[in-house]
């Protein structure tokens, strides 16, 4: 696949978001909020940045992706289905018995899932393991991992961060989807994260903070960090809006893990098609 340009990526992000809300509606469960906040980044990764081959999901030299905040798998499944890892229609079997699209990503059931996740705070350590192996084996692949902001409250995240710095994993890129919402409320109410970018920087990461819904900014950021081999792992904090693209879901905590009804789905599709062009 040739990488999409910015306008094409924006179109693709619309398709990604539509796929997310449609599959969660069909399943009548799942996590739309954090899927939609991550949609623009995920589109840029899967349709431009990552060196992957849907026909050969286990290709040794591929870039890896670890969805540390595994509950937002609808957005990962959208990317995998739209890239052809699995026939597109299957995406609507989200959370059904026998489906490759489990409630949380399952590497044994779904091609293209590099590791099973779902328990928050654990994915990043596995990404560090993959990146470390890449370094030791002198492979050129990179490892990308997406964290939730709430997820960064888990202590294990910071244990993983320490080891990424110690082993100079400049082949590792960590994204924090900073939508400032978790389940019980805003991150500020539940457990303030303070200056998350500075935290990563203090631990020894090279950091950036950008608007996670500007495709231009996302692509520019990916261009900038692509070839930086300075012995430092990278962290990009993405300022995002949970539920982004669906008016009634935006910044509403209750859409963390709720499914739209028929009427709401219709409205969601209209919003997504209209608002993000």
């Amino acid at each position, binding site marked *: 696949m040739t990488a999409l340009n910015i306008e094409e990526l924006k179109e693709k992000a619309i398709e990604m978001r539509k796929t997310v809300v449609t599959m969660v509606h069909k399943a009548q469960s799942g996590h739309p909020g954090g899927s939609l906040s991550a949609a623009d980044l995920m589109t840029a990764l899967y349709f431009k940045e990552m060196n992957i081959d849907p026909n050969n999901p286990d290709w040794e030299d591929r870039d890896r992706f670890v969805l540390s905040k595994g509950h937002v798998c609808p957005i990962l499944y959208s990317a995998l289905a739209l890239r052809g890892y699995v026939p597109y229609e299957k995406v609507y079997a989200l959370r059904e018995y026998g489906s490759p699209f489990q409630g949380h990503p399952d590497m044994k059931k779904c091609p293209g899932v590099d590791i099973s996740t779902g328990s928050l705070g654990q994915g990043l350590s596995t990404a560090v393991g993959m990146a470390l192996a890449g370094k030791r084996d002198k492979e050129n692949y990179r490892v990308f991992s997406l964290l939730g902001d709430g997820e960064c409250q888990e202590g294990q995240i910071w244990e993983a961060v320490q080891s990424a710095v110690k082993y100079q994993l400049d082949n590792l890129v960590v994204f924090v989807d900073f939508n400032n919402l978790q389940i*019980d409320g805003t991150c500020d109410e539940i457990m303030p994260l303070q200056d998350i970018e500075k935290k990563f920087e203090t631990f020894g990461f090279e950091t950036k903070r950008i608007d996670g819904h500007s495709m231009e900014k996302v692509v520019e950021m990916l261009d900038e960090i692509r070839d930086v081999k300075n012995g430092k792992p990278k962290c990009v904090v993405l300022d995002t809006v949970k539920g982004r693209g669906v008016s009634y879901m935006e910044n509403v905590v209750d859409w963390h893990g709720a499914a739209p009804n028929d009427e709401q789905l219709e409205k969601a599709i209209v919003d997504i098609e209209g608002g993000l062009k």
Partner: protein
Amino acid sequence: MNILEKDLSTKKTTREAFGDEVVKLGKEDRNIYVVDADIAKSCKTMKFAKELPEQHVNVGIAEQNAAGLAAGLSTTGKVPFVSTYAVFGSLRMSEQIRQEVCYPKLNVKVACSHGGLTPASDGGSHQAVEDMGIYRSMPNMTVIMGSDYYSTRKLVEQAAEIYGPVYLRFTRGAIPVIYDENEEFEIGKAKKLHEGKDIAIIANGDAVHLAIEATKELEKLGISVKLLDMHTIKPIDREAVVECLELGQIITVEDHNILNGLGSAVSEVAAEEGKGKVKRIGIQDQFGESAPYEKLLELNGITIENIVNTANDLVGVKV
């Protein structure tokens, strides 16, 4: 009243029972605390957080910290209930609970929802198949699972009354209300739901109402069933199990791995007594996956039909 004739059509969740009871307890005793880890909504502790904010802590998504913090609170005389999903409460917190709660025998209650296969569509990562077994292995820990709304409320109340670590397991879906509001329960003492002489069925939690339905069918077939609700698997009610062993055969039914849960606890007593046969119905030492809850039960044979068939086979074997 005869449980087999009782109307079981009213359904409620046991996690709500916990949420309701802990508010009541918290109002009566200001030392009762709830420590949440960002799933107060699912664990039904939001009401406590709103009504008793001075007795509530939410540490965010940081279960290990929740466990340790609760241990610290308990050293000052508070009675904390740490609350999260069973899978995280038994696994992510397990060493903190072992070292800082069970080892020094502190007064912390681990109160978890979404036990067993009940978070069905979330998939295998979220289904707690081993939680009761983990806590059953820790010295000083008491392990409890109520079988309906009222028994759960009473057992939560009792857990607050006894000193020491307790693991309480609740579930996600609404299940039949079995008991009357005023029914009394005692930790470590099985509840006899039906008297019988051919075979004993011992169940706990969400499996109890399945066992009641199976008992109805077996009685129709002329098989007389003694039915126990073993809400406490540790300490196990040895006397009650021994009484069941007199019948020669026991079936255990649980939504937990057949290893280290109710079935194991009962089998251990049977083996030590040197009599009786135990058939364990439960999760077949395998992880779950995304599916409707009933489908997951079926995949593991945790069904009325399988209880009936198993009982039939056993009684058939009896001369």
